[in-house]
């Protein structure tokens, strides 16, 4: 299945999807490991590292852009970020961290993608392929 969206940050990636159905705050993750440490979080205990993170939008502290940038430098960041609507904090973090990011899809990525799905994407074209 193919989804078409708009580029936030160009780049190609493929990896395993990690879907979070709540608006996501990057400050809820430990930047050293990429693991979501916030108690009671919808994806508590999951690691963002190397995943294709799928979120409705980003939220939380305005320090979030630096959190993402730090994770990108350490290697604990998601491989790519797919959002229904990119918020400025997350978009800035993706730009800084060179993380391919797409938003504004023709369909709803939250419904189309499940955690564990294999994803291939080209953010310049805004194309996301769900392989399984």
């Amino acid at each position: 299945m193919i989804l078409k969206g708009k580029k936030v940050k160009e780049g190609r990636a493929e990896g395993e999807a990690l879907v979070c159905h709540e608006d996501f705050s990057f400050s809820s993750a430990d930047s050293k490991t990429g693991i979501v440490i916030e108690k009671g979080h919808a994806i508590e205990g999951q690691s963002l590292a190397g995943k294709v993170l799928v979120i409705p939008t980003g939220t939380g502290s305005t320090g979030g852009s630096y959190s993402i940038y730090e994770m990108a430098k350490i290697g604990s960041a998601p491989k790519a970020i797919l959002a229904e609507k990119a918020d400025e904090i997350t978009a800035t973090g993706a730009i800084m961290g060179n993380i391919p990011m797409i938003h504004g899809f023709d369909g709803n990525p939250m419904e189309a993608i499940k955690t564990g799905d294999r994803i291939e994407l080209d953010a310049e074209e805004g194309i996301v392929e769900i392989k399984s």
Partner: protein
Amino acid sequence: MILTKEEEGMLEGKFGDGVQKAMNILVSLGEIYGAERMAKVGSAHLPGAGVTSAKDAGISFVEEMYEGGARFKTWTTLNVCAVDFVNWKKIGISEEIVKRQLKLTELFRKMGAAPIHTCTPYFGLTQLRMNEHVAWGDSGALLLANSVFGARTNREGGPSALASAITGRAPVFGLHLEENRYGNFSIEVNTQLNSLADFSALGLCVGELVNKGVPVFTNLSTEISFDELMALTTLPAGGTIALFHILGVTPEARTSESIFSKGKPENEIVIGDKDIAKTFEELNTGNSDPDLIVLGCPHASIQQIIYFSQLLEGKKVNTNTRLWIFTSIAVKSIADKIGCTAIIEKAGALIITDTCPIQLTDDFYENENIHCITTDAASMPHYMAGYHGKLGLKSHFGSAEKCIKAAISGKWEEA
């Protein structure tokens, strides 16, 4: 985007690497969000000014910008950092963090900012006017800039606020545009709001119910105080809220016809006693004596400090606990002058500047053996759970009066 000749020059590197990098970030954001042009900003407020928020990557980024010749082109203030430069040793902040923070603060100072860190730059540092384009970070500060002052800013992250500070520009999209500033939720409050803690709880509760949008409070008293408006900075702790209106109070909300884009709200929320009671309950997870009591989130106004000093005069903070009042050094200098600081310190409490509990490290809390945060700010437990999730801190929440009573008795009295 249509750029001016000067802005094109910035993008082409005519003003150095740092400016080019900064303009690149802003143009990228502008293109994502369909901005037609850049606006000149009257001020910038930088989140991630503390070493714990910026982290190594952020610190390197600021260094890179500085080395690339970037200097602040607009009036720029710094958000809270990891350190109280005067009292750090007294409260147990590590020398290593102080050294790192001094380096970062010095970079900002050389770029043109005053080396003062606060989430309340509107006290003594920056004046805002209605419709002024600014680039502010810190969820609470930008909320008030938009809502109470009628200025225009998006929710700026560290790098984008820094880019705006360096270029003096922000891409015109989102809340820079009037069409995005209308209210879409009406909030009717049918409960008594007696203390600032009640307003603080109201903000968190409404933020959670709205989740995303522009709430309009329709029946709050038009005699609401500035401190009460500040207490509503808990809205973005509950949801993604960058702008709120209060009918007859905030500058853009003169009438309900004019503030809702269709003349009426898309959603209606009514807040009653039960909602506020539930919020209080959720914030009171602590079951031990208060070990750290914090007031001044956001950084306390001088009016609040005067009130705290009245409650503390002639009293003593219990030796089993700590009472810290957070504020900006600008406000503290007023507190010093009028004698409040002396009263507060005589009682055994501390006025802490430039930092906040969120910016302190996990190590700090572990070394100091702190298990619970006692506060009158409804957003504090939420942010602590995110930033300091590993610690599993509990919380006590109540009015400043109750917090100060607890500081004196060493016990948290259940209502």
